[in-house]
């Protein structure tokens, strides 16, 4: 009985291996692509290392050196009780990643998000501070703030701007470029 089971399993595995190695078969493709899909991709994803290993990797689109440290320093100027709104040009994955990383580094400040939809999608504000909580700062990602905000604004790299919110406006109004 035991030998029969071993024989059946061995034959099944041999057949599977033969089919896999056949031109175009899974194993053949796997062997060909393994270096590309496993090791080469891993090497391309090389993270910068250090205390902010992952956040620096996520903040690469900001195009600034040591982005996490730079952002932490910029956010330290904001009192911990002040809420911030992060205004971004769209709901793409990159913008969402930047928003969440800014919120990560900005703790304990409450950092809400406004996604400007433009012509393709509606403007959304999925994560806003509680009503009544004063929003005193605005952070613009890939959006040029309106002229009344640019005077006091501080550029954090070519894509990110931090500006005090002089008065409370409708969120959509910050989306106009």
């Amino acid at each position, binding site marked *: 009985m035991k030998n029969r089971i071993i024989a059946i399993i061995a034959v099944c595995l041999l057949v599977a291996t033969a089919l896999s190695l056949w031109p175009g078969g899974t194993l053949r493709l796997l062997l060909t692509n393994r270096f590309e899909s496993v090791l080469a991709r891993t090497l391309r994803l090389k993270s910068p290392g250090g205390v902010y290993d992952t*956040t620096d990797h996520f903040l690469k689109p900001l195009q600034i050196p040591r982005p996490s440290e730079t952002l932490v320093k910029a956010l330290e100027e904001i009192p911990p009780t002040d809420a911030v709104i992060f205004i971004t040009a769209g709901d793409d994955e990159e913008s969402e990643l930047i928003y969440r990383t800014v919120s990560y580094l900005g703790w304990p400040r409450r950092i809400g998000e406004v996604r400007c939809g433009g012509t393709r999608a509606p403007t959304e504000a999925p994560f806003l501070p509680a009503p009544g909580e004063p929003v005193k700062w605005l952070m613009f990602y890939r959006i040029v703030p309106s002229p009344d905000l640019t005077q006091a604004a501080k550029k954090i790299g070519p894509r990110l701007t931090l500006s005090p919110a002089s008065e409370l406006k409708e969120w959509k109004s910050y989306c106009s470029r």
Partner: protein
Amino acid sequence: MEIILFAVALLLIVAAGCGIALIALPRHRSTGIIELLCLSFLLGAGFVSLASFIFGFLIAGSGLRLTIAACCLGLFALGLRARSWRFDWRFAPPDGISDWALLCLSILLVGLAAWVSSLRAMGWDGLFNWELKARIAFLNGGAIPLGFYSDPTRPWTHPEYPLLLPLSETWLYEWLGRADQEMAQLLILICFVAVLGMLHASLSRFGDHRAQAWAPPAMMLLAPQLIFSGQGGVSSGYADFPLAAFYLAAVVILLEYYEKGDAGLLLPFGLLAGMLPWVKREGAILWSCLIAMAMIKIFQRRDWRRAALPVAPGLAVLIGWRIFLMIAKPSSGEEFLPVTPSTLRTNLWRAPLIAWAVIHELLNWRRWGPLWIAVAAAAIFLIAKRRRERRVVLPVAVFLPIALYAGAYIFTGWDFLPHLNNSYPRLLIHVSPVAALTVAVAAPIGRARKDKSDRSTPEAI
């Protein structure tokens, strides 16, 4: 200096876990030093995180750290006292070229995982769902402030997720004196070492031949999802691999209970299984599977008096966390629809599509190599060969969670196929070390049985 502080934090975790293991494990059980270290790390991480969570309501900062450190040392002393202050930690060095080669392969595997971890950043969820809480707790003196849970700007951090991994990371941060994203990845690498150690220890207990010990490292090496790539793997910072480590340890103790019928194993089993819902929400499903299996054997053996031991720790964690969430009122939304007969009737049409997607995933060689095909063959072999209790325990411990996880997508509130394709591969990680163990135990290698008395005695305590 950093290495010393990191070592102190880790040693305290191991000391606490060692104390718990020495108290909980039956005195007459022969436990190897490798197995004891692995169990100590897992139980210690569970204790430190639970203590941080509970004491964090009362004290903060260095007071919290010193209190927990004192508790760790106290537990270690209690454990030694339970064993009459004897700590016989004999260790058998590798015997023969095969053992040395296996050790080299295991070191190579750990080195490879460490290298990949050093190259890769954490995954999205690894940072935002898990490490973020560790950082917040560190910045807040060791405990997560209540305001975090109901923060309307951070529901995407899933504040309702349990805290074993974040608070264990916080423990390391507190000793290091800084939040360090690379160190968080290191903790999961240690879980990987614990998995390898538990597999080795369990095969020296249940295996028939030394060559079987080659199967798990080989399976892991051939499954890129576990080490090299993919969400939930060793380098991603997710809680899936730590959950897999706890699940493997609990299954190994349960299997021993099934085979030996020693009711003294029910307490360590209950402690390990009870940590599963504290690691990740899916841990509640794994816990339910294990408790159901344990109860079947308890009823068969009529161990009524000890029936509460395996259930109580997990139930306490589940109920305690539920009560806390009711008080904290987390701000995140629900991903799943209510589990009711009407939802089931409405969404039952999804079942065949889910089954097809699951089979497709299990046969995905780019992620899993030959792992699941080998497990299927091993399960057939174990059942056909009627190999004692393990013919039931191991296949059920692998395939029942796989089926239940798949069934959960019937109730998802999202588009179910993208949800499944995105999350199911990392759910399979939870059972993959047990799957590797199943393959190894079933491997039909020769007839020569190793001399268990020779193997187990020298390295036992």
